[in-house]
């Protein structure tokens, strides 16, 4: 319970500090990207890497989040997330 409290405090602090001002580009799959990616990290990880990765790069990154970092994202959602990133934040 203590850790849970800490966890939620982290979210609250982060959101208060400006995380809520990060705005992703509109596009199909955006809400899924927000709900899945922001589970573990702020969305500036996406905007910070804008124009750096090609589609294959985003596939690799999303794959790493699932296979290495353990994000519980199924294949169908994975594809929607990759498509969104590759359309909106591609090199």
């Amino acid at each position, binding site marked *: *319970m*203590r*850790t*849970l409290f*800490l*966890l*939620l405090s*982290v*979210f*609250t*602090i*982060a*959101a208060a*500090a*400006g*995380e*809520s*001002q*990060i*705005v*992703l*580009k*509109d596009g199909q799959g*955006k*809400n899924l990207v*927000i*709900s899945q990616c*922001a*589970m*573990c*990290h*702020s969305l*500036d*990880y996406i*905007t*910070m*890497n*804008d*124009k*750096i*990765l090609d589609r294959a*790069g985003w596939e690799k*990154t999303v794959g790493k989040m699932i296979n*290495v*970092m*353990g*994000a*519980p994202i199924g294949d169908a959602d994975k594809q929607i997330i990759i498509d969104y990133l590759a359309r909106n934040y591609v090199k």
Partner: protein
Amino acid sequence: MVDRRHFIKKVAGGLAALGSWFLLQRSSLAADPVATITDALTGKKALIKKSYRPPNYETPVNYFDAPFTPNDLFFVRYHHSVIPEVKAEEWRLRVGGDAVRTPLELTLEQLRRDFKPAEIAALCLCSGNRRGLFQPHVPGVQWGSGAMGNALWRGVRLRDVLAGAGIGESALEVSLDGADSGTLKTTPDFIKSLPLAKALDENTLIAFEMNGEPLPHWNGFPARLIIPGWTATYWMKHLTEVNVLSKPFDGFWMKTAYRIPRDRFPGRQFSSQETATNMPITEMVVNSLITNLIDGQTVPAFKPLEIKGVAWDDGNGIARVEISTDDGVSWHHATLKQDYGRFSWRQWRYDFEPKRTREYRIMARATSHSGASQPFEPIPNPSGYHHNAVQKIAIQVA
């Protein structure tokens, strides 16, 4: 420990509760801010925000004018979002592992009381500092030049603590774990390991003070590792566990992350973690930074201009810093300022009097006592580490 799967549900709930955030996300009006965002974490002054969660913040380079970077301006770098505010009186350091004779558990008070104090000035430098300057770009936190800071660290020697527990003959590596963790139970915990020799180095400390004050929360309160000369990935914050191991530690953060190609950089000191093609990043490379000029800046003619900066290496010490004001055609020695020890950065200055109203191209190049000097182009590597190319700053004299 409570089951983290339970947390995921709760976190999802917590996120949903931040409804305004989602609403804001749905009505995307503002363009994506690529511009610099400054933001102050609790207890810190405004720093350059790279990411909010986990918090990654760099120091504006003009603050490197001070020989020791103030604690409230010191950069912040985390891999995980769950960063508990550790209470000093509840904190314990566990010393264990399969190659330790007597596992120990120490309080902060015991650490302070039972071991000889040690102090060292040392540069703490993120492996990926200047990653954002690589061309072509490399994915990851897009650091500028401010993911570093110089501080006076005070604590006790790791080797004294390990000696208290007793090191078995089979000891090969010493792993380090901190109190932070990922949001999900499935995310690999940030655990690093050191070769035994580095763990036993007289300069490797468990520090609880930074510049004469307790460590700031965001820099590892109440205790962190200091491994002078090595990049900051090993400088474990909020240290909770030290394990003496008889086998190479094979967690993600050693086996896969923080790797550099073999034979491309100097230094090969971690044989138990090397593969045929790559090795863990270890020592810093020789480097320098001009801290008081910005590319494209205009300065007045016929007025002396003091060019200032810092230089550092892996602990051999800086032999010289040379400055060019003509795009690398001629080079002149900068004056090295006070020496705070071979693991501290070295501040330098150079007086320049521009005589013409035109563009000048300024460069700084440091050379280590090892003989190593900075390259003119960064050495490519997949994760964008060790960017130590000579800076090129164009100034307009008008």
